[in-house]
Protein backbone atom coordinates (compact mmCIF):
# COMPACT_ATOMS: atom_id res chain seq x y z
CA UNK A 1 0.00 0.00 0.00
CA UNK A 2 1.37 3.34 -1.01
CA UNK A 3 -0.37 5.85 1.23
CA UNK A 4 -1.02 5.27 4.92
CA UNK A 5 -4.45 3.73 5.47
CA UNK A 6 -7.48 5.86 6.26
CA UNK A 7 -8.14 3.98 9.48
CA UNK A 8 -5.51 2.03 11.31
CA UNK A 9 -5.81 -0.06 14.46
CA UNK A 10 -2.43 -1.00 15.83
CA UNK A 11 -1.89 -3.58 18.57
CA UNK A 12 -5.19 -3.08 20.36
CA UNK A 13 -5.68 -4.76 23.74
CA UNK A 14 -9.04 -4.07 25.30
CA UNK A 15 -10.75 -5.29 28.42
CA UNK A 16 -14.17 -5.45 29.97
CA UNK A 17 -13.32 -5.14 33.61
CA UNK A 18 -10.88 -7.96 34.32
CA UNK A 19 -11.70 -9.84 31.11
CA UNK A 20 -9.43 -9.27 28.11
CA UNK A 21 -11.41 -9.00 24.90
CA UNK A 22 -8.71 -8.13 22.36
CA UNK A 23 -5.21 -9.48 22.05
CA UNK A 24 -2.98 -7.32 19.86
CA UNK A 25 -5.59 -6.66 17.24
CA UNK A 26 -4.38 -4.71 14.20
CA UNK A 27 -6.66 -3.75 11.33
CA UNK A 28 -6.22 -1.34 8.39
CA UNK A 29 -8.90 0.24 6.26
CA UNK A 30 -7.42 1.85 3.14
CA UNK A 31 -9.14 4.88 1.66
CA UNK A 32 -11.97 4.01 -0.70
CA UNK A 33 -12.15 0.35 0.21
CA UNK A 34 -14.56 -2.00 1.96
CA UNK A 35 -12.97 -3.97 4.76
CA UNK A 36 -14.85 -6.53 6.74
CA UNK A 37 -14.16 -8.02 10.13
CA UNK A 38 -15.58 -11.50 10.50
CA UNK A 39 -16.09 -13.63 13.52
CA UNK A 40 -18.61 -15.55 15.57
CA UNK A 41 -20.51 -14.35 18.57
CA UNK A 42 -18.47 -12.84 21.35
CA UNK A 43 -15.31 -13.00 19.27
CA UNK A 44 -14.73 -9.32 20.00
CA UNK A 45 -15.98 -7.89 16.68
CA UNK A 46 -18.38 -5.41 18.17
CA UNK A 47 -15.84 -4.38 20.76
CA UNK A 48 -13.43 -3.50 17.95
CA UNK A 49 -16.14 -1.26 16.58
CA UNK A 50 -16.54 0.34 19.98
CA UNK A 51 -12.82 1.03 20.18
CA UNK A 52 -12.96 2.86 16.85
CA UNK A 53 -16.05 4.87 17.74
CA UNK A 54 -14.73 6.00 21.10
CA UNK A 55 -17.24 4.01 23.15
CA UNK A 56 -14.41 2.07 24.75
CA UNK A 57 -10.80 3.03 25.29
CA UNK A 58 -8.35 0.18 24.70
CA UNK A 59 -5.88 -0.40 27.48
CA UNK A 60 -3.05 -0.35 24.96
CA UNK A 61 -2.70 0.15 21.26
CA UNK A 62 -3.59 2.99 18.97
CA UNK A 63 -6.41 3.95 16.62
CA UNK A 64 -5.46 6.46 13.93
CA UNK A 65 -7.73 8.09 11.38
CA UNK A 66 -6.25 10.06 8.47
CA UNK A 67 -2.93 9.87 10.22
CA UNK A 68 -4.28 11.38 13.43
CA UNK A 69 -4.39 9.50 16.72
CA UNK A 70 -8.02 9.26 17.79
CA UNK A 71 -7.59 6.69 20.56
CA UNK A 72 -9.84 7.49 23.49
CA UNK A 73 -11.44 10.56 21.96
CA UNK A 74 -15.09 10.97 22.93
CA UNK A 75 -17.57 9.78 20.28
CA UNK A 76 -18.67 13.26 19.13
CA UNK A 77 -15.06 14.15 18.34
CA UNK A 78 -14.74 11.04 16.25
CA UNK A 79 -17.94 11.75 14.34
CA UNK A 80 -16.66 15.26 13.72
CA UNK A 81 -13.56 13.82 12.03
CA UNK A 82 -15.67 11.99 9.47
CA UNK A 83 -16.47 8.57 10.90
CA UNK A 84 -20.14 7.60 10.90
CA UNK A 85 -21.59 4.45 12.34
CA UNK A 86 -24.41 2.04 11.69
CA UNK A 87 -24.59 0.44 15.11
CA UNK A 88 -25.40 -3.15 15.88
CA UNK A 89 -29.14 -3.80 15.84
CA UNK A 90 -29.54 -0.44 14.10
CA UNK A 91 -30.11 1.47 17.33
CA UNK A 92 -32.54 3.90 15.76
CA UNK A 93 -34.33 6.35 18.01
CA UNK A 94 -37.58 4.38 18.08
CA UNK A 95 -39.89 7.15 19.25
CA UNK A 96 -38.62 9.63 16.70
CA UNK A 97 -39.81 9.87 13.11
CA UNK A 98 -37.76 8.62 10.22
CA UNK A 99 -37.04 12.20 9.21
CA UNK A 100 -35.86 13.09 12.70
CA UNK A 101 -33.67 10.03 12.77
CA UNK A 102 -32.08 11.04 9.49
CA UNK A 103 -31.57 14.58 10.70
CA UNK A 104 -29.83 13.23 13.79
CA UNK A 105 -27.24 11.86 11.39
CA UNK A 106 -26.51 15.42 10.31
CA UNK A 107 -26.36 16.60 13.90
CA UNK A 108 -22.88 18.08 13.72
CA UNK A 109 -23.34 19.73 10.34
CA UNK A 110 -23.97 23.44 10.23
CA UNK A 111 -24.60 23.71 6.46
CA UNK A 112 -28.38 23.64 6.65
CA UNK A 113 -28.93 23.99 2.92
CA UNK A 114 -26.73 21.18 1.79
CA UNK A 115 -28.15 19.01 4.56
CA UNK A 116 -31.56 19.55 3.01
CA UNK A 117 -30.12 18.73 -0.39
CA UNK A 118 -28.47 15.57 0.91
CA UNK A 119 -31.74 14.52 2.46
CA UNK A 120 -33.55 14.87 -0.87
CA UNK A 121 -30.83 12.91 -2.60
CA UNK A 122 -30.89 10.18 -0.01
CA UNK A 123 -34.63 9.85 -0.34
CA UNK A 124 -34.12 9.33 -4.06
CA UNK A 125 -31.75 6.56 -3.23
CA UNK A 126 -34.07 5.09 -0.56
CA UNK A 127 -37.55 5.74 -1.99
CA UNK A 128 -39.06 3.48 0.69
CA UNK A 129 -38.02 5.95 3.34
CA UNK A 130 -39.60 8.88 1.54
CA UNK A 131 -42.98 7.20 2.04
CA UNK A 132 -42.34 6.76 5.73
CA UNK A 133 -40.73 10.04 6.68
CA UNK A 134 -43.27 10.90 9.37
CA UNK A 135 -43.58 7.40 10.75
CA UNK A 136 -42.01 6.48 14.08
CA UNK A 137 -38.82 4.56 13.40
CA UNK A 138 -39.75 1.90 15.94
CA UNK A 139 -42.71 0.85 13.84
CA UNK A 140 -40.64 0.07 10.74
CA UNK A 141 -39.71 -3.44 9.70
CA UNK A 142 -36.19 -4.65 10.33
CA UNK A 143 -35.12 -4.07 6.75
CA UNK A 144 -36.54 -0.59 6.69
CA UNK A 145 -34.82 0.18 9.96
CA UNK A 146 -31.53 -0.90 8.43
CA UNK A 147 -32.12 1.48 5.53
CA UNK A 148 -32.77 4.31 7.95
CA UNK A 149 -29.65 3.48 9.90
CA UNK A 150 -27.53 3.55 6.78
CA UNK A 151 -29.12 6.69 5.44
CA UNK A 152 -28.67 8.28 8.87
CA UNK A 153 -24.97 7.50 8.79
CA UNK A 154 -24.66 8.99 5.32
CA UNK A 155 -26.30 12.21 6.48
CA UNK A 156 -23.09 13.16 8.26
CA UNK A 157 -21.18 13.05 4.92
CA UNK A 158 -18.62 10.69 6.41
CA UNK A 159 -15.30 9.57 4.92
CA UNK A 160 -15.69 6.24 6.64
CA UNK A 161 -18.78 4.34 7.69
CA UNK A 162 -18.48 1.67 10.34
CA UNK A 163 -21.25 -0.90 10.16
CA UNK A 164 -21.92 -3.45 12.86
CA UNK A 165 -23.65 -6.49 11.41
CA UNK A 166 -25.70 -4.62 8.82
CA UNK A 167 -27.46 -7.77 7.61
CA UNK A 168 -28.31 -9.14 11.03
CA UNK A 169 -31.89 -10.30 11.37
CA UNK A 170 -32.85 -9.33 7.83
CA UNK A 171 -34.77 -11.45 5.37
CA UNK A 172 -32.71 -12.66 2.38
CA UNK A 173 -34.36 -10.13 0.11
CA UNK A 174 -33.22 -7.29 2.31
CA UNK A 175 -29.79 -8.76 2.77
CA UNK A 176 -29.25 -8.44 -0.96
CA UNK A 177 -30.57 -4.94 -0.98
CA UNK A 178 -28.37 -3.90 1.92
CA UNK A 179 -25.26 -5.37 0.36
CA UNK A 180 -26.04 -3.61 -2.88
CA UNK A 181 -26.42 -0.36 -1.02
CA UNK A 182 -23.11 -0.82 0.75
CA UNK A 183 -21.49 -1.25 -2.65
CA UNK A 184 -23.23 1.91 -3.88
CA UNK A 185 -22.11 3.86 -0.87
CA UNK A 186 -18.56 2.73 -1.37
CA UNK A 187 -18.63 3.64 -5.03
CA UNK A 188 -19.75 7.14 -4.07
CA UNK A 189 -16.40 7.52 -2.37
CA UNK A 190 -17.05 6.50 1.23
CA UNK A 191 -14.80 3.89 2.77
CA UNK A 192 -16.56 1.11 4.65
CA UNK A 193 -15.53 -0.93 7.65
CA UNK A 194 -18.05 -3.61 8.46
CA UNK A 195 -18.30 -6.20 11.15
CA UNK A 196 -20.15 -9.26 9.94
CA UNK A 197 -21.08 -12.73 10.86
CA UNK A 198 -22.39 -13.40 7.41
CA UNK A 199 -19.04 -14.25 5.87
CA UNK A 200 -19.64 -15.01 2.20
CA UNK A 201 -21.97 -12.13 1.78
CA UNK A 202 -19.64 -9.69 3.42
CA UNK A 203 -16.65 -10.98 1.51
CA UNK A 204 -18.57 -10.88 -1.77
CA UNK A 205 -18.57 -7.10 -1.65
CA UNK A 206 -15.45 -6.44 0.43
CA UNK A 207 -11.96 -5.74 -0.76
CA UNK A 208 -10.26 -7.33 2.18
CA UNK A 209 -11.17 -9.03 5.41
CA UNK A 210 -10.02 -10.08 8.85
CA UNK A 211 -11.23 -12.99 10.91
CA UNK A 212 -11.39 -12.57 14.65
CA UNK A 213 -11.60 -15.51 17.01
CA UNK A 214 -11.84 -15.02 20.78
CA UNK A 215 -10.11 -11.70 20.55
CA UNK A 216 -7.31 -12.59 18.16
CA UNK A 217 -6.97 -12.01 14.44
CA UNK A 218 -6.58 -15.52 13.09
CA UNK A 219 -6.79 -14.81 9.41
CA UNK A 220 -6.64 -11.83 7.10
CA UNK A 221 -6.16 -10.99 3.47
CA UNK A 222 -7.88 -10.09 0.26
CA UNK A 223 -11.58 -10.92 0.19
CA UNK A 224 -11.25 -13.25 -2.76
CA UNK A 225 -8.54 -15.24 -1.04
CA UNK A 226 -10.52 -15.49 2.19
CA UNK A 227 -13.63 -16.61 0.35
CA UNK A 228 -11.93 -19.78 -0.74
CA UNK A 229 -10.12 -20.35 2.53
CA UNK A 230 -11.64 -23.38 4.27
CA UNK A 231 -10.83 -21.87 7.65
CA UNK A 232 -13.66 -19.42 7.14
CA UNK A 233 -16.13 -22.17 6.83
CA UNK A 234 -14.67 -23.80 9.88
CA UNK A 235 -15.05 -20.64 11.85
CA UNK A 236 -18.75 -20.73 11.18
CA UNK A 237 -20.09 -24.13 10.38
CA UNK A 238 -17.51 -25.98 12.37
CA UNK A 239 -14.52 -28.09 11.51
CA UNK A 240 -16.55 -31.12 10.72
CA UNK A 241 -18.35 -29.33 7.94
CA UNK A 242 -17.77 -30.70 4.53
Amino acid at each position, binding site marked *: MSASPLLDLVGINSYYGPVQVHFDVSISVPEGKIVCLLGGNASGKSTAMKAILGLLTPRSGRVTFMGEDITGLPPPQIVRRGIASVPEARRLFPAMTVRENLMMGAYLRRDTESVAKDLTELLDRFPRLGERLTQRAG*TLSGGEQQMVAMARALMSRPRLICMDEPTM*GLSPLFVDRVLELIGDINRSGVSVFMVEQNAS*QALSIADSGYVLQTGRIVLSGAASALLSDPQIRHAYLGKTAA
Partner: protein
Amino acid sequence: MMASLLEITGLTRHFEGITAVDGIDLAVQEGELVSVIGPNGAGKSTLFNVISGLDRPDAGGVRLDGVDITGRSPEKLARLGLARTFQHGRVFANLSVLDNVLVGTHARLAAVRPGWRGFGPLGELLLAVVRPGAVRREEAALRSEAEAILARFGDRLVPRLDHPAYSLSYANRRRVELARALALRPRLLMLDEPTAGMNETETTEMEEVIAALKATGLTILLIEHKLDMVMRLSDRVLAMDDGHSIAEGAPATVRDHPAVVEAYLGHPANQRTAVA
Protein backbone atom coordinates in the same frame (compact mmCIF):
# COMPACT_ATOMS: atom_id res chain seq x y z
CA MET B 1 -46.06 -43.25 21.27
CA MET B 2 -44.60 -41.30 24.13
CA ALA B 3 -45.70 -37.70 24.47
CA SER B 4 -43.03 -35.06 24.04
CA LEU B 5 -41.56 -33.48 27.15
CA LEU B 6 -41.73 -30.05 25.56
CA GLU B 7 -44.13 -29.22 22.82
CA ILE B 8 -44.33 -25.83 21.17
CA THR B 9 -47.00 -24.98 18.67
CA GLY B 10 -47.24 -21.87 16.50
CA LEU B 11 -45.34 -19.78 18.98
CA THR B 12 -45.29 -16.12 17.93
CA ARG B 13 -43.98 -12.98 19.56
CA HIS B 14 -44.08 -9.48 18.04
CA PHE B 15 -42.11 -6.47 19.10
CA GLU B 16 -42.72 -3.03 17.67
CA GLY B 17 -42.74 -3.64 13.93
CA ILE B 18 -40.76 -6.86 14.14
CA THR B 19 -41.90 -10.41 14.51
CA ALA B 20 -39.13 -11.89 16.60
CA VAL B 21 -40.61 -15.35 16.76
CA ASP B 22 -42.94 -16.35 13.99
CA GLY B 23 -45.03 -19.48 14.29
CA ILE B 24 -42.39 -21.83 15.65
CA ASP B 25 -43.33 -25.49 16.18
CA LEU B 26 -41.02 -27.80 18.05
CA ALA B 27 -41.27 -30.99 20.05
CA VAL B 28 -38.53 -32.26 22.31
CA GLN B 29 -38.63 -35.86 23.52
CA GLU B 30 -37.46 -36.98 26.93
CA GLY B 31 -33.68 -37.45 26.90
CA GLU B 32 -33.18 -35.61 23.66
CA LEU B 33 -30.77 -32.78 23.02
CA VAL B 34 -32.20 -30.34 20.52
CA SER B 35 -30.22 -27.33 19.34
CA VAL B 36 -31.59 -24.10 18.04
CA ILE B 37 -29.25 -22.38 15.64
CA GLY B 38 -29.45 -19.31 13.47
CA PRO B 39 -27.66 -16.03 12.90
CA ASN B 40 -27.79 -13.23 15.42
CA GLY B 41 -31.21 -11.68 15.64
CA ALA B 42 -32.95 -14.78 14.35
CA GLY B 43 -35.19 -14.84 17.42
CA LYS B 44 -33.59 -17.68 19.37
CA SER B 45 -33.34 -15.89 22.69
CA THR B 46 -36.86 -14.54 22.38
CA LEU B 47 -37.99 -18.10 21.82
CA PHE B 48 -36.24 -19.07 25.06
CA ASN B 49 -37.78 -16.17 26.93
CA VAL B 50 -41.26 -17.10 25.80
CA ILE B 51 -40.81 -20.77 26.67
CA SER B 52 -39.35 -20.02 30.09
CA GLY B 53 -42.12 -17.59 31.02
CA LEU B 54 -40.11 -14.37 31.06
CA ASP B 55 -42.09 -13.14 28.11
CA ARG B 56 -45.58 -13.95 26.95
CA PRO B 57 -46.30 -15.15 23.44
CA ASP B 58 -48.71 -13.23 21.24
CA ALA B 59 -49.92 -16.51 19.77
CA GLY B 60 -49.26 -20.20 20.08
CA GLY B 61 -48.74 -22.45 23.05
CA VAL B 62 -46.18 -24.30 25.12
CA ARG B 63 -46.80 -27.66 26.81
CA LEU B 64 -44.49 -29.31 29.25
CA ASP B 65 -45.14 -33.00 29.74
CA GLY B 66 -48.58 -32.55 28.27
CA VAL B 67 -49.51 -29.65 30.58
CA ASP B 68 -50.25 -26.30 29.00
CA ILE B 69 -47.76 -23.86 30.51
CA THR B 70 -48.25 -20.97 28.12
CA GLY B 71 -47.80 -17.66 29.92
CA ARG B 72 -47.04 -19.19 33.32
CA SER B 73 -44.65 -17.26 35.48
CA PRO B 74 -40.99 -18.29 35.39
CA GLU B 75 -41.03 -19.18 39.09
CA LYS B 76 -43.85 -21.67 38.51
CA LEU B 77 -42.01 -23.16 35.56
CA ALA B 78 -38.86 -23.53 37.61
CA ARG B 79 -40.92 -25.52 40.07
CA LEU B 80 -42.01 -27.78 37.21
CA GLY B 81 -38.37 -28.52 36.51
CA LEU B 82 -37.53 -26.07 33.79
CA ALA B 83 -34.10 -24.44 34.17
CA ARG B 84 -32.38 -22.05 31.84
CA THR B 85 -29.24 -20.03 31.41
CA PHE B 86 -29.10 -16.61 29.86
CA GLN B 87 -27.39 -15.38 26.74
CA HIS B 88 -25.30 -12.77 28.49
CA GLY B 89 -24.73 -14.69 31.67
CA ARG B 90 -26.90 -13.40 34.46
CA VAL B 91 -25.11 -14.46 37.58
CA PHE B 92 -25.84 -12.74 40.89
CA ALA B 93 -22.79 -10.51 40.90
CA ASN B 94 -22.44 -9.88 44.63
CA LEU B 95 -23.25 -13.44 45.66
CA SER B 96 -20.55 -16.02 46.12
CA VAL B 97 -20.15 -18.83 43.63
CA LEU B 98 -21.63 -21.31 46.07
CA ASP B 99 -24.59 -19.06 46.88
CA ASN B 100 -25.26 -18.57 43.18
CA VAL B 101 -25.54 -22.32 42.77
CA LEU B 102 -27.60 -22.67 45.95
CA VAL B 103 -30.15 -20.21 44.57
CA GLY B 104 -30.54 -22.83 41.86
CA THR B 105 -31.77 -25.27 44.48
CA HIS B 106 -34.44 -22.85 45.64
CA ALA B 107 -37.32 -24.58 43.92
CA ARG B 108 -36.40 -27.80 45.72
CA LEU B 109 -36.33 -26.45 49.26
CA ALA B 110 -38.83 -28.45 51.27
CA ALA B 111 -37.96 -28.70 54.95
CA VAL B 112 -37.61 -24.96 55.34
CA ARG B 113 -40.68 -24.20 53.28
CA PRO B 114 -43.53 -25.84 55.14
CA GLY B 115 -46.80 -25.95 53.30
CA TRP B 116 -48.69 -24.32 56.17
CA ARG B 117 -51.69 -22.86 54.44
CA GLY B 118 -51.65 -19.09 54.71
CA PHE B 119 -48.72 -19.14 57.12
CA GLY B 120 -46.10 -20.57 54.79
CA PRO B 121 -43.92 -17.47 54.67
CA LEU B 122 -44.14 -17.05 58.43
CA GLY B 123 -43.14 -20.66 58.95
CA GLU B 124 -40.27 -20.21 56.56
CA LEU B 125 -39.00 -17.21 58.53
CA LEU B 126 -39.27 -19.10 61.80
CA LEU B 127 -37.58 -22.20 60.46
CA ALA B 128 -34.80 -20.09 58.97
CA VAL B 129 -34.14 -18.66 62.42
CA VAL B 130 -34.63 -21.77 64.52
CA ARG B 131 -33.17 -24.22 62.01
CA PRO B 132 -34.30 -27.54 63.37
CA GLY B 133 -32.41 -30.65 62.35
CA ALA B 134 -34.42 -31.26 59.19
CA VAL B 135 -33.66 -27.78 57.90
CA ARG B 136 -29.99 -28.05 58.76
CA ARG B 137 -29.75 -31.42 57.08
CA GLU B 138 -31.51 -30.16 53.98
CA GLU B 139 -29.21 -27.17 53.76
CA ALA B 140 -26.14 -29.34 54.26
CA ALA B 141 -27.32 -31.79 51.63
CA LEU B 142 -27.96 -29.03 49.12
CA ARG B 143 -24.61 -27.49 49.91
CA SER B 144 -22.72 -30.67 49.26
CA GLU B 145 -24.78 -31.26 46.15
CA ALA B 146 -23.91 -27.77 44.92
CA GLU B 147 -20.26 -28.43 45.60
CA ALA B 148 -20.53 -31.68 43.69
CA ILE B 149 -22.06 -29.88 40.75
CA LEU B 150 -19.29 -27.31 40.81
CA ALA B 151 -16.79 -30.13 40.83
CA ARG B 152 -18.01 -31.07 37.36
CA PHE B 153 -15.95 -28.13 36.14
CA GLY B 154 -12.74 -29.52 37.53
CA ASP B 155 -10.77 -26.99 39.49
CA ARG B 156 -12.23 -24.05 37.62
CA LEU B 157 -14.69 -23.14 40.36
CA VAL B 158 -13.97 -25.31 43.36
CA PRO B 159 -11.17 -23.08 44.69
CA ARG B 160 -13.44 -20.05 44.23
CA LEU B 161 -16.53 -21.14 46.18
CA ASP B 162 -16.48 -18.00 48.34
CA HIS B 163 -15.54 -15.54 45.64
CA PRO B 164 -18.19 -13.07 44.56
CA ALA B 165 -19.39 -13.82 41.05
CA TYR B 166 -18.42 -10.39 39.75
CA SER B 167 -14.76 -11.29 40.29
CA LEU B 168 -14.96 -14.31 37.97
CA SER B 169 -13.82 -14.51 34.37
CA TYR B 170 -16.48 -14.54 31.71
CA ALA B 171 -16.06 -18.25 31.12
CA ASN B 172 -16.35 -18.99 34.81
CA ARG B 173 -19.54 -17.00 35.04
CA ARG B 174 -21.02 -19.16 32.31
CA ARG B 175 -20.00 -22.22 34.28
CA VAL B 176 -21.63 -20.84 37.40
CA GLU B 177 -24.80 -20.26 35.41
CA LEU B 178 -24.83 -23.83 34.20
CA ALA B 179 -24.11 -25.13 37.70
CA ARG B 180 -26.97 -23.02 39.04
CA ALA B 181 -29.29 -24.46 36.43
CA LEU B 182 -28.21 -27.99 37.26
CA ALA B 183 -28.82 -27.38 40.94
CA LEU B 184 -32.51 -27.14 40.08
CA ARG B 185 -32.33 -30.80 38.98
CA PRO B 186 -34.13 -29.82 35.83
CA ARG B 187 -36.32 -32.04 33.69
CA LEU B 188 -35.63 -29.67 30.83
CA LEU B 189 -32.42 -27.68 30.68
CA MET B 190 -32.33 -24.70 28.35
CA LEU B 191 -28.87 -23.39 27.58
CA ASP B 192 -28.52 -20.08 25.78
CA GLU B 193 -25.05 -19.93 24.19
CA PRO B 194 -23.23 -21.62 27.06
CA THR B 195 -19.84 -21.22 25.37
CA ALA B 196 -20.14 -17.61 24.24
CA GLY B 197 -16.89 -15.82 24.96
CA MET B 198 -14.97 -19.02 25.70
CA ASN B 199 -11.77 -19.99 23.99
CA GLU B 200 -11.29 -23.36 22.37
CA THR B 201 -10.08 -25.22 25.42
CA GLU B 202 -12.87 -23.81 27.52
CA THR B 203 -15.39 -24.62 24.82
CA THR B 204 -14.19 -28.18 24.66
CA GLU B 205 -14.50 -28.50 28.41
CA MET B 206 -18.03 -27.13 28.30
CA GLU B 207 -18.92 -29.50 25.50
CA GLU B 208 -17.71 -32.41 27.58
CA VAL B 209 -19.83 -31.28 30.50
CA ILE B 210 -22.90 -30.99 28.30
CA ALA B 211 -22.21 -34.36 26.70
CA ALA B 212 -21.93 -35.91 30.15
CA LEU B 213 -25.23 -34.34 31.15
CA LYS B 214 -26.86 -35.69 28.06
CA ALA B 215 -25.50 -39.09 28.84
CA THR B 216 -27.36 -39.04 32.14
CA GLY B 217 -30.59 -38.75 30.18
CA LEU B 218 -31.20 -35.06 30.77
CA THR B 219 -33.37 -33.35 28.19
CA ILE B 220 -31.59 -30.30 26.81
CA LEU B 221 -32.58 -27.44 24.57
CA LEU B 222 -29.48 -25.62 23.39
CA ILE B 223 -28.85 -22.37 21.59
CA GLU B 224 -25.35 -22.39 20.21
CA HIS B 225 -23.34 -20.74 17.51
CA LYS B 226 -20.39 -23.07 17.49
CA LEU B 227 -21.78 -25.52 14.99
CA ASP B 228 -19.02 -28.06 15.47
CA MET B 229 -20.27 -28.59 18.92
CA VAL B 230 -23.88 -28.55 17.84
CA MET B 231 -23.17 -31.22 15.28
CA ARG B 232 -21.51 -33.46 17.81
CA LEU B 233 -24.01 -32.99 20.62
CA SER B 234 -27.41 -32.69 19.04
CA ASP B 235 -29.99 -35.32 18.31
CA ARG B 236 -31.91 -32.81 16.29
CA VAL B 237 -31.43 -29.22 15.22
CA LEU B 238 -33.88 -26.40 14.60
CA ALA B 239 -32.55 -23.60 12.44
CA MET B 240 -34.17 -20.19 12.68
CA ASP B 241 -33.79 -17.07 10.64
CA ASP B 242 -35.76 -13.86 10.91
CA GLY B 243 -38.14 -15.45 13.42
CA HIS B 244 -39.03 -18.39 11.21
CA SER B 245 -38.03 -21.98 11.35
CA ILE B 246 -36.01 -22.57 8.21
CA ALA B 247 -35.00 -26.16 8.75
CA GLU B 248 -35.43 -28.90 11.30
CA GLY B 249 -34.08 -32.39 11.54
CA ALA B 250 -30.88 -34.35 11.95
CA PRO B 251 -27.83 -32.14 12.52
CA ALA B 252 -26.03 -32.86 9.29
CA THR B 253 -29.20 -32.46 7.26
CA VAL B 254 -29.91 -29.11 8.79
CA ARG B 255 -26.35 -27.93 8.41
CA ASP B 256 -26.34 -28.72 4.75
CA HIS B 257 -29.80 -27.39 4.19
CA PRO B 258 -29.47 -24.63 1.58
CA ALA B 259 -31.52 -22.21 3.66
CA VAL B 260 -29.19 -22.69 6.61
CA VAL B 261 -26.02 -22.27 4.61
CA GLU B 262 -27.59 -19.21 3.12
CA ALA B 263 -28.56 -17.79 6.47
CA TYR B 264 -25.04 -18.21 7.75
CA LEU B 265 -22.83 -17.62 4.80
CA GLY B 266 -25.01 -15.67 2.41
CA HIS B 267 -26.93 -16.97 -0.48
CA PRO B 268 -25.52 -15.85 -3.85
CA ALA B 269 -25.03 -19.11 -5.71
CA ASN B 270 -21.46 -18.42 -6.76
CA GLN B 271 -20.38 -17.71 -3.20
CA ARG B 272 -22.00 -20.77 -1.88
CA THR B 273 -20.18 -22.96 -4.32
CA ALA B 274 -17.01 -21.08 -3.64
CA VAL B 275 -17.26 -21.96 0.01
CA ALA B 276 -18.41 -25.47 -0.56
